[in-house]
């Protein structure tokens, strides 16, 4: 599902942010990518999102070769992914329903499908009663649930989450992780970038640890390492 071969990303003349990384993630896997700030994990997510281009190596995601992908193809590729950010990145002037529906609109789903699918997903993330609320009227946890709903509404093959619990308290973080696990249980590949030690240790999933742009450990049912 995700295949990185000898991937390097340099921003300038200094040390590469991602340095000769090899990583393979199977379909349906749940993987944590951990590491300290500046370890290269966020760059890794940006490479997978095709927000950045690698400076070396090859990246294949859901059958798509990213290093040769043309700009006009990127939007179609991103529809195969769901993405969740630490700062939620919701459209502030649109309500919960519209934020989730937007992901369906961009892929040209007819309105009748959107009207059926969006309430289903909001129900799934526990926000059925708040579909009219604006993002600023919601708590951090609720906003992240909206972001999750938006990420999964199109049933993506892969869900990328960049520090999804970074702005949340421990209880809400657990709830979000439970939702991610639930999504993974339905066959979606989930890749979570985090430095939340408690969550990583509690969930007993595959843990990839990065340090200075290099993968220093990759363990099944691993634990958080202070690399």
């Amino acid at each position, binding site marked *: 599902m995700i295949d990185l071969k000898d991937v390097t990303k340099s921003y300038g003349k200094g040390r590469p942010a991602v340095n000769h990384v090899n990583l393979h993630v199977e379909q349906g896997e749940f993987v944590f990518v951990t590491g300290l700030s500046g370890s290269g994990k966020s760059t890794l997510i940006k490479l997978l*999102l095709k*927000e950045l281009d690698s400076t070396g190596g090859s990246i294949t995601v859901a059958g798509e070769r990213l290093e040769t992908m043309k*700009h*006009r193809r990127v*939007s*179609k*590729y*991103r*529809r195969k*992914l769901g*993405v969740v950010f630490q700062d939620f*990145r*919701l*459209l502030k*002037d649109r309500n919960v329903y519209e934020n989730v529906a*937007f*992901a369906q*609109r*961009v*892929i*040209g789903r*007819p*309105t009748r499908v959107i009207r059926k699918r969006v309430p289903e997903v909001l129900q799934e993330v526990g926000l059925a009663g708040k579909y009219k609320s604006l993002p600023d009227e919601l708590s951090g946890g609720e906003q992240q649930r909206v972001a999750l709903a*938006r990420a999964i509404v*199109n049933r993506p093959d892969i869900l990328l989450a960049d520090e999804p619990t970074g702005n949340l308290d421990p209880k809400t973080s657990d709830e979000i992780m439970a939702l991610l696990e639930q999504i993974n249980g339905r066959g979606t590949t989930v890749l979570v970038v985090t430095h939340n030690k408690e969550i990583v240790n509690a969930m007993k999933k595959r843990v990839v640890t990065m340090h200075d742009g290099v993968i220093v450990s990759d363990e099944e049912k691993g634990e958080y390492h202070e690399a």
Partner: protein
Amino acid sequence: MRPSTIWYILKQGVKNIWRNWMFSAASVLTMAACIFLFGLFYLIVINVNFNTQKAQEKVPITVFFEPGTTQEEMDWVGEQIRARPDVETITFESADEGWEKFAKQYFPEGSAAADVFRDDNPLTGSDNYQVSVNDISLQYDLVRYIEELPHVREVKQAERAAEFLTNISNMVYYVSLIVIGVLLLISIFLISNTVSVGISVRSEEIAIMKYIGATDHFVRAPFVLEGIILGVVGASIPLVSLYYLYQEVVKWMMNNYSSFTGAVSFLSVEQAYKTFLPVGLLLGVGIGLLSSFFTTKKHLRV
């Protein structure tokens, strides 16, 4: 593209204007101010041009014929002249008509001179064509052409007046070209800057759309539509206000400066707007469309 998607884009374009009403208002006001200034100058220029043109028409070329030229031959010469694209008007005046006009002006009916020349036209042989050109700078060429035609005895022209008007006309043309060009550049710069700032504050929103998988067209379409709407509104304000202002100013000038009447004439508002309306709208819509198109492009590389 699905009808629901088109409808969504249309709705978003209109909603964007309300969501960012301060930037929308700033864009519309900047556009309105620029097009107003542009329009003001444009209306002055086309009126100056109109008057120069009118003055040119008043500088006639008079074509006289050799003695013995028949009416058919004179008609033929008239046809040759009329066929020229640089000829604005051509009127024939026979010797009898010429004398009648002269006598009416200088010899009142019943005077001795009128009686003396009643049956003896002193202007015999002065049948002529009065020709006016649509561009005074072409008068010299036309005169040369007419002089070469058969049966033509003499061609009279007001060379100095033609030269003077040619100079005025050229000066107006170049000055207006420069001023309109400069105003246009300033307008484009100011308007596109305002529209750009309005879109730049929404770069985060554009980025989110792109992360979700929106195509460039899908993201851009509401912004471009917004730019077009702002362009139409921004252009309509000066177009409407100048429409009424122009009529009032013309009326006021004609009433208060009666010496103008006859010497200077103004284009009717309908005539003036025949060109100013499409130019103003095109300016507003064009700048709104292009600036939103290119500003969005900057933020689409996510």
